């Protein structure tokens, strides 16, 4: 039943969609029915697959770079008073700039290719990961730190054996947020200027009133985003299996 339920929900939504289209008789270029979208999948499969591959690469690369940079920044912030005093305010203020507003500039600087979208996704992922991990690192139970000090633990080993593991649940929250916003970064980047990707395909199809192709691309993106979230959630759960499960 646990596996069956999401499938039933999905089928139910498809049925509702088809009924809505049949009942209202809405034009196919406003809302195509599920069958039309399925047909678009069938006819445009190679093209959809290629563009999805581009977008997925952008998302995964952005997620990788963003998480890596976020972790490094959090570690530096947690271990350097100077960085906390001078860099943290800049970091917080920089978040007042909507990242989407940077998209045209990034395209201007980095071109229509992969790079501008990866940077876009990285920027959007970086902040939640940094702040969540940093917060976790500075909230280490003071008792643990006292214990480590009396035991004669070095600063480095106290960091790697106590503080970082203790911060993993907070880090996981940051990465979950990152995983859900990463596709936004890539798609917005593609809308502003690109030569490939699902965002590009959607704009292209939109101009030609191929709304069924748009829906096919959208569906593909949604499927990937959900899959990504659950894969990452599963991995994080495994990483912090010691934490009592507070999940759904």
């Amino acid at each position, binding site marked *: 039943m646990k596996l069956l339920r999401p499938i039933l929900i999905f089928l139910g939504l498809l049925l509702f969609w088809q009924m809505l289209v049949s009942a209202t008789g809405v034009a196919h270029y406003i809302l195509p029915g599920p069958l039309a979208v399925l047909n678009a999948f069938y006819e445009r499969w190679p093209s959809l697959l290629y563009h999805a591959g581009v977008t997925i690469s952008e998302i995964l690369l952005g997620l990788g770079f963003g998480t890596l940079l976020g972790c490094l920044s959090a570690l530096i912030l947690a271990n350097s008073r100077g960085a906390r005093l001078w860099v943290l305010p800049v970091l917080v203020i920089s978040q007042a700039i909507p990242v989407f507003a940077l998209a045209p500039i990034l395209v201007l600087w980095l071109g229509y290719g992969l790079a501008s979208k990866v940077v876009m996704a990285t920027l959007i992922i970086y902040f939640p990961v940094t702040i969540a991990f940093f917060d976790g690192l500075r909230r280490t139970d003071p008792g643990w730190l006292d214990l480590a*000090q*009396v*035991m004669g633990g070095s600063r480095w080993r106290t960091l790697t*054996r106590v503080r970082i593991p203790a911060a993993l649940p907070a880090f996981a929250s940051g990465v979950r947020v990152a995983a859900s916003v990463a596709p936004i970064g890539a798609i917005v980047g593609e809308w502003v200027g690109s030569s490939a990707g699902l965002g590009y395909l959607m704009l292209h199809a939109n101009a030609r009133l191929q709304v069924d192709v748009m829906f096919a691309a959208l569906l593909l993106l949604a499927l990937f985003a959900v899959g990504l979230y659950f894969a990452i959630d599963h991995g994080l759960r495994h990483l912090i299996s010691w934490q009592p499960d507070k999940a759904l």
Partner: protein
Amino acid sequence: MAGVSDLPPTSSRRQSRKAPGIGLREASLSYQGKVVFENLNLDLPAGRLTCLLGPSGVGKSSLLRYIAGLSGSDSESTVSGHLEFGDSESGTSGIAYLAQQDLLLPWLNVLDNVMLGSRLRGETADRDRAMDLLARVGLAGQEKQRPVQLSGGMRQRVALARTLMEDRPVVLMDEPFSALDAITRYELQHLASSLLAGKTTLLVTHDPLEALRIGHRLLLLTGSPARITESIDPPDAPLRDVATPATAALQATIMRRLTEARRIATAGSDEPRRQVPE
């Protein structure tokens, strides 16, 4: 009163470092401008368990943290004075620390928690000794459990094993049993008393009965700034039967002193509270 106290003597390796006596000289500590204690002198006899009693908030834990070398790491406290060890080699690296919370790391299993000190110092842990200690605290066969799967009493047993694993001549304990239920506390007091035999131990407690049961020497810390106002060496050796007339009388004395101390503290404060009935 037998049982755990009849455990065989600890292995010869554990006795390798002879426990030194500790003297605290001219120790002062202020926190946020408030003097906690000033020019305090204190002696912990070698190889004995000393209990530090006092009303809550008097600075018992601060004193213990001072000896552990944990004071003064923040900008808000001022620290002076020094520690004298009965031998030349010990220093603060000869100290093991057991807090009120078990401080077990939830991501490590019981065995790895016991071996935490070695991990933090980058040494190879002596697995066999850790297993032996776990057996001594009554947790044989539990080494693969995660702390979350254990009861409060079992967790504190693991913490005790971790403290003993450090193999330090000096052990500082900050109300280690106060969060446990009466029977578990009773069991652990006896276990600790037998396993800590021969070590110089300071036990901070708010429970006069606990102190009378397992302490060689009882110190009363009262006043503000806090001072050692009474040092009691009960004639017989721990573990004592707290039901004898002699110990009952001692307990009454201690209770009276603590009550007086709290009354004075209350009268001295800006906001008078309801007086403690005598």
